[in-house]
């Protein structure tokens, strides 16, 4: 296992998670949308993202952690994270002036929402990783910051830059950029001296 491989897996993981969740929820879960002010819909959306993220990242953790525990933790973390991120994002959207600088205002909303999402995923995954790999709480901090920066960067790149390749593949591009942020941050923790890097 190399740092580059973990980074690549994490980029693919988040791209796949976003694509799968959007496609699945759009295809079959629309009728449940109005239930509970959208809460169950968002929870399920996040769970699908988490399962995909966990499944792809598991390729880098092969047999070092229990598959079911890793998938479950990633799914629960992302599900809770998306619900909390939706609350944070909506509340910030109500208090930040729409006439202000879109980069600052929009960036704040995306970064803080991403921070909450990353925090939830980070906590859930850390509980599985801490034993087998000796990963410290820095995993939580790294995932939170990585997803936060990834979320802000994804929104900025796709809103402000006219890159056709990214625009045409909007959903996987968004996920891949978030995964890039999370992957870089996690590599730093996994390859620190105190962690036992997967072979």
């Amino acid at each position: 296992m190399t740092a580059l491989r973990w980074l690549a897996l994490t980029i693919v993981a988040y791209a796949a998670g976003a694509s799968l969740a959007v496609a699945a929820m759009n295809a079959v879960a629309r009728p449940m949308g109005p239930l509970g002010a959208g809460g169950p819909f968002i929870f399920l959306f996040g769970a699908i993202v988490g399962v995909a993220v966990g499944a792809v990242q598991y390729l880098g953790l092969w047999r070092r952690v229990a598959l079911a525990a890793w998938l479950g933790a990633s799914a629960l973390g992302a599900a809770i994270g998306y619900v909390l991120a939706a609350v944070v994002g909506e509340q910030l959207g109500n208090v930040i002036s729409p006439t202000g600088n879109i980069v600052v205002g929009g960036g704040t909303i995306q970064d803080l929402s991403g921070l909450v999402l990353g925090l939830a995923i980070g906590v859930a995954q850390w509980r599985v990783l801490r034993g087998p790999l000796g990963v410290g709480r820095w995993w939580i901090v790294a995932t939170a910051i990585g997803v936060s920066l990834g979320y802000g960067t994804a929104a900025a790149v796709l809103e402000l830059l006219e890159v056709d390749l990214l625009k045409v593949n909007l959903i996987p591009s968004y996920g891949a950029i978030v995964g890039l942020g999370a992957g870089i941050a996690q590599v730093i923790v996994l390859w620190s001296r105190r962690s036992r890097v997967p072979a």
Partner: protein
Amino acid sequence: MSPPRLALVALLLLAACGPAVQVANPVNASGAPLSTRSSCQPTDQDQFVYRPSRLQLIAACVRITGTVVSSSAESDGDVHINVRLDPPYEALLTKANLTEQGYLIVEPVCRFPPLQAEAIRVCASDGDPIAGDLPAVGAHVFMEGRYVLDLQHGGWSELHPLYRWGATP
């Protein structure tokens, strides 16, 4: 706090959030009286516009005709359609529309679950977004939607949300 309890708290917080309401003012962006068709009727899509304060409502429903120039999905779940207006409707444009090459922006909302956080809940609640395909690039169409100024983008004018559309000769 255990994860299931955390999830429950998060769901309750989510349920407490609600969209704001704006009031119509039937003049165009220049302040002149707006010509609207009496047959143009809003749908329920108004309530699924996220962060409604970013849009200044000008008229509840306006019908235009024009040619679709481009169309692209946005990470907030909306689709961004640029329309070259037919001459009778060009007065609907503002100076800020020049940043979009002088096209009117038309946005059907919640076409797919958004990734942008502030739009997630509002769109999740939309169980019935505008149905069917959207017009292809090059199509000459009529479109009906809420006429607004987008304050986040310098006040360019939009039909947002799009209520309905159809092909015209």
